[in-house]
């Protein structure tokens, strides 16, 4: 997957989790949770969706790496390079 593919994947997952999510003013370098008003239960769902869709196991200690859209892309790029 390219970096853009990964970005769309994450946005698609968030849309799936929250059909009211608005991405218009999303800052890629700011925490997703604050901007989208997500809670820890929603956040777990991003991890769960990645597991379901791409068989990715993300250990709990790595969750902070999924904080912003950009950090998600950086973290997932090597893991999804063959996807």
């Amino acid at each position: 997957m390219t970096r853009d593919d990964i970005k769309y994947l994450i946005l698609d997952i968030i849309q799936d989790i929250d059909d009211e999510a608005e991405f218009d003013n999303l800052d890629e370098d700011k925490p997703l949770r604050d901007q989208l008003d997500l809670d820890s239960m929603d956040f777990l769902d991003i991890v769960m969706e990645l597991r379901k869709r791409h068989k990715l196991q993300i250990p709990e200690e790595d969750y902070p790496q999924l904080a912003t859209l950009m950090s998600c892309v950086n973290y997932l790029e090597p893991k999804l390079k063959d996807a």
Partner: protein
Amino acid sequence: MPDHQLIIIGGGLSGLAAGIRAARFGLKPLIVEQHSLPGGLNSYYFRQGHLLETGLHAMTNFAPPGLKHAPLNRLFRQLQLSRKEFTTHEQIESEVIFPQTSLRFSNDLNLLCEEIAVRFPAAIDRFRALVKEVDAYDPFAERPWQSARAFLRSRLADPLLEDMLLLPLMVYGNAEEDDMDLGQFAIMFRAVFLEGFFRPSGTIKDLLELLLAHYKHFGGEIRFRAPVAQILHEGEQVRGIRLQSGEELFAAAVLSTVGIPGTAEMSGWPLQASRYTGRMSFMETITLLPELRLPPERSGKTIIFYNQKERLAYHRPSGPIDASWGVICFPGNFHGMLHDGPAQVRVTNAANYDLWRQADEAEYLRLKEVCGQQAGAAVRKILGDCCQHPLFQDSFTPLTIERYTSKCAGAVYGSPVKIKSGKTPWRNLFIAGTDQGYLGIVGAMLSGVTIVNQHLLK
């Protein structure tokens, strides 16, 4: 290899919600339900061509779409159900009626504040401070039991106001007698006074069908008429279940929603059953009328919580029922509900399980008749003759509740002692639903979701 990754015992609201959550993330769960219908405590039946609901006076925790952190909306996101497409009807106005005075409330907290300002002028500032305190309280943190009554006494210093506020909260969600845990009080205070009552459009049948279809859409399986007799285990692990038919099904994990006493009986969990058997049970009478003609001062009310004595006696009555306090619900009186067909009135009173249990068949029928009349007389004092000449009347008792849900002793709110972690002595057996600590329809569903998140998805 086990046959299933997860077996869920019970197709009530907690079991269905747990199932949806598990199936959504590919766990391929199987729900086994003893009855031919889903819903458990909140289900329905047909009599003389009428669909009658059991439970569902109202759902608590109202929140409009968009309020992301509200429990209701969070629940919908977790289940991946669209909140926007779920039509809700808010309550019109409810009332707590005591001999001394009455208090009206709605989903707008201002109404309750105005009423308290008029009837309890000395307490209104204290009440506003209490609202702030409860709003900031974290009811989910693990703490030792604390008395809600002691808390209210110290904050409001008014025993009558204390009783009047407690009546709706206790009758809609307290497994203990006379007092309640402060955490449970905070959950119920928010659910009822800060968020409020609503009904989904349609009946409980529509809601259950929505949940069931969603569950199946994610690949979940359900078997009806499949009562579980035993939970099979070996060492620290459970292996699966044995149905009453003798059939054995194996699973990597089992989630039980039948309550602590029922789960203990099926698994041989050595615990003192009496400690986990609730004493609060109820009788409910459903009356269908050609039309609802309430006296002017009560017209348009959604739910009336009444007490005809000086103090509130929230405990198991000494007679078969205690008609001196209870709930009168008008399921048609919600904003924007369509009125076709007969009007409904539902009356709920505390009941003594043991007395109903001891009765033989003839005595049981006689009790039903006598208690129905007692409840009717109590209602007449408040509503006048509006419930005369019903088209249809039926009532259910603690035994009906026990028979249809297996809730030990017909205890609607389950065990007075909850197991919030959902854990049991077996590493892969968990409990969810009423005895995990969240009550009511929204609560039961959140419980199912939370336990699956904590123990099965991570």
